[in-house]
């Protein structure tokens, strides 16, 4: 119950943590990308805006200048026509000049009207003065148009010199002023574009700076988090492997304790209980030897006791052998394996061969026990599952390892079943001595269990 509770709460606390991490990353990186997208769009917009406004400013400038030039040349031309009119003695010709002058006047009027919308409100001043100058110019000319040829001859030149030309010059200078205004307007347009660009640059720098800062913040945050996760994972791994090795040690100790316990119980049974029963048997036999023939029931009872004691001795002997065969300690590994082989053979009729090479009598106890128990387990499996006719047990001591194989000619098994069948127990024993286990088997082709135990196990056991 307790462990359950702990598990649940830790799982609960992990889920929101994960959620906030994910949200933070989403917001952070999403925001960064949005900022980048914004500044990109901004740049595209600013650039296209700059190109169009630059073009239109230049276009307007050119149109205004053209119109101004036309006004200027019309004004100039009007002066020429006035002069021609005033200096013409022939009245007919003078009328023609006057007609031309009227034409040019209406042309100027229309030019001025067309020019008006092109002028920015703040630059209206020079235009208005050009316009009023133009009106007063025409007004001052009006009396001269009614003059006959005599009057024209008499006052014409003077009028031309004193009225027409100075006015024309004034108008032309106003036109120059308007030209100057135009120039300034062009410059102002350039300035506006440059201002837009500067503002854009400032904005870009700001956005990039924010993006960079956010990026650095996010990167360092993510990195710290990743490193933290890595550390935690490593710590977990360490914990797990530590726990696993502790478990392994524990299981090795358990096996060792079990073996020792079995050995001592077996010895006690065999030596203490068995010997005592043997002693009882001797006494009963002696009793039987000295009992009188009559009454017969006495001898019958004594004989029954003898039979019971004999059975008990056999029972104790079998129990001791099952727990741990004393021959493993008294005679060594190979005789104990041969005993096992004979026992299986006796019980099940399977032919069991034991081949042992270079196995020293004083094999370390750990190795001896391991090999004996592995063979015991393997023979148990053979008897139970393999339906074998014969089994071959090989033990071979090499320079740096001991090789053990148990091969049967039974029904074999599928690959996925290799791990079952008490193999876990075998594996545990062998791995405790840093050895390795291999099972190769195919249905119908028997089974081979191979075990390699390193000589370091020997050294360890001897130490």
């Amino acid at each position, binding site marked *: 119950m307790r462990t359950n509770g702990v598990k649940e709460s830790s799982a609960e606390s992990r889920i929101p943590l994960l959620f906030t991490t994910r949200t933070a990353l989403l917001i952070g990186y999403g925001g960064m990308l949005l900022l980048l997208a914004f500044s990109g769009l901004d740049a595209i917009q600013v650039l296209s805006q700059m190109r169009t406004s630059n073009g239109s400013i230049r276009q307007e400038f050119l149109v205004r200048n053209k119109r101004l030039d036309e006004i200027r040349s019309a004004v100039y031309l009007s002066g020429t026509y006035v002069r021609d009119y005033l200096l013409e003695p022939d009245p007919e010709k003078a009328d023609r000049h006057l007609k031309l002058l009227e034409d040019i006047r209406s042309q100027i009027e229309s030019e001025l009207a067309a020019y008006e919308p092109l002028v920015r409100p703040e630059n209206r001043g020079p235009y208005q003065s050009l316009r009023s100058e133009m009106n007063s110019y025409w007004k001052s000319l009006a009396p001269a148009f009614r003059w006959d040829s005599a009057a024209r001859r008499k006052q014409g030149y003077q009028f031309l010199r004193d009225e027409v030309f100075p006015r024309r010059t004034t108008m032309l200078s106003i036109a120059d002023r308007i030209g100057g205004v135009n120039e300034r307007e062009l410059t102002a347009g350039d300035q506006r574009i440059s201002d837009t660009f500067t503002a854009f640059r400032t904005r870009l720098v700001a956005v990039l700076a924010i993006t960079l800062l956010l990026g650095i913040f996010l990167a360092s945050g993510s990195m710290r988090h990743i490193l933290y996760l890595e550390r935690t994972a490593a710590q977990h791994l360490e914990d797990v492997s530590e726990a696993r090795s502790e478990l392994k040690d524990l299981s090795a100790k358990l096996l060792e304790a079990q073996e020792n316990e079995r050995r001592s119980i077996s010895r006690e049974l065999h030596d203490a209980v068995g010997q005592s029963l043997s002693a009882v048997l001797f006494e009963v036999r002696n009793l039987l030897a000295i009992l009188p023939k009559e009454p017969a029931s006495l001898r019958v009872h004594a004989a029954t006791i003898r039979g019971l004691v004999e059975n008990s001795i056999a029972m104790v002997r079998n129990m001791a052998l099952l727990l741990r065969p*004393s021959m493993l300690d008294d005679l060594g590994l190979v005789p104990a394996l*041969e005993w096992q082989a004979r026992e299986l053979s006796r019980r099940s009729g399977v032919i069991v061969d034991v081949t042992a090479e270079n196995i020293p009598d004083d094999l370390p106890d750990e190795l001896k026990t391991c090999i004996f128990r592995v063979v015991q387990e393997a023979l148990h499996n053979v008897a139970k599952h393999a339906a074998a006719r014969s089994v071959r047990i090989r033990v071979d001591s090499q320079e740096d390892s001991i090789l053990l194989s148990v091969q049967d000619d039974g029904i074999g098994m599928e690959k996925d079943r290799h791990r079952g069948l008490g193999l876990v127990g075998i594996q545990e024993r062998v791995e405790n001595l840093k050895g390795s286990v291999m099972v190769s088997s195919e249905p119908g082709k028997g089974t081979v269990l191979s075990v390699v135990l390193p000589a370091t196990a020997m050294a360890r056991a001897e130490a």
Partner: protein
Amino acid sequence: MSNIRVIVADDHTVIRSGLKLMLGREPDVEVIGEAADGRQAVDLAEKLRPDVVVLDVAMPILNGIEAARQIAAKLPKTRVVILSMHSDEGYVLKSLKAGARGYLLKDSAESDIINAIRAVNEGKAYFSPEISRLLADDYVRQLRQRDVDDSYELLTTREREILQLLAEGKSNKDISSLLDLSPYTVETHRSKILQKLNLHSLPELILYAVRKRIII
């Protein structure tokens, strides 16, 4: 004929005194000493030079089989009978190799112990009937299971004769005078027998004879 002088060694007092009582009833057996462990048994045997020593396998300080080895090495004329709880042939072979010629189970009948002492005293080998039966059964079963020919069939009549005599504890010299052969010929027969039966020593030969029920 003089009595058979016997030393009994067992760490259980009850068994020792039981044995003594039992053997004491026999007219031709005399228990001249008792030992509670293997070391004592060896020392006592060296001192008293008995005809037969009866040794329990499981004894403190020095076990019965080791004691048998030492006694056989020091006193070639003294015979050893092993008393054991184990019926496995591993123990039998080891005892034979240690020099014992009698191997009895502790729950053997009274008569077996007397018979064993008499047999080894005459230089013969002796085993509990249960042991003989187990060994013989195993042998027969193995032959049947493996479907192999009994190598005994390979022996000539003379070799079978010599095999039995060897198993009964006769020396080459005894055999040569018994069969009126030269000791050299007996030795040749002996090594041929061992070779044909794939045996390597006299103890193995004795064990083989028990399995084949050539001797009891």
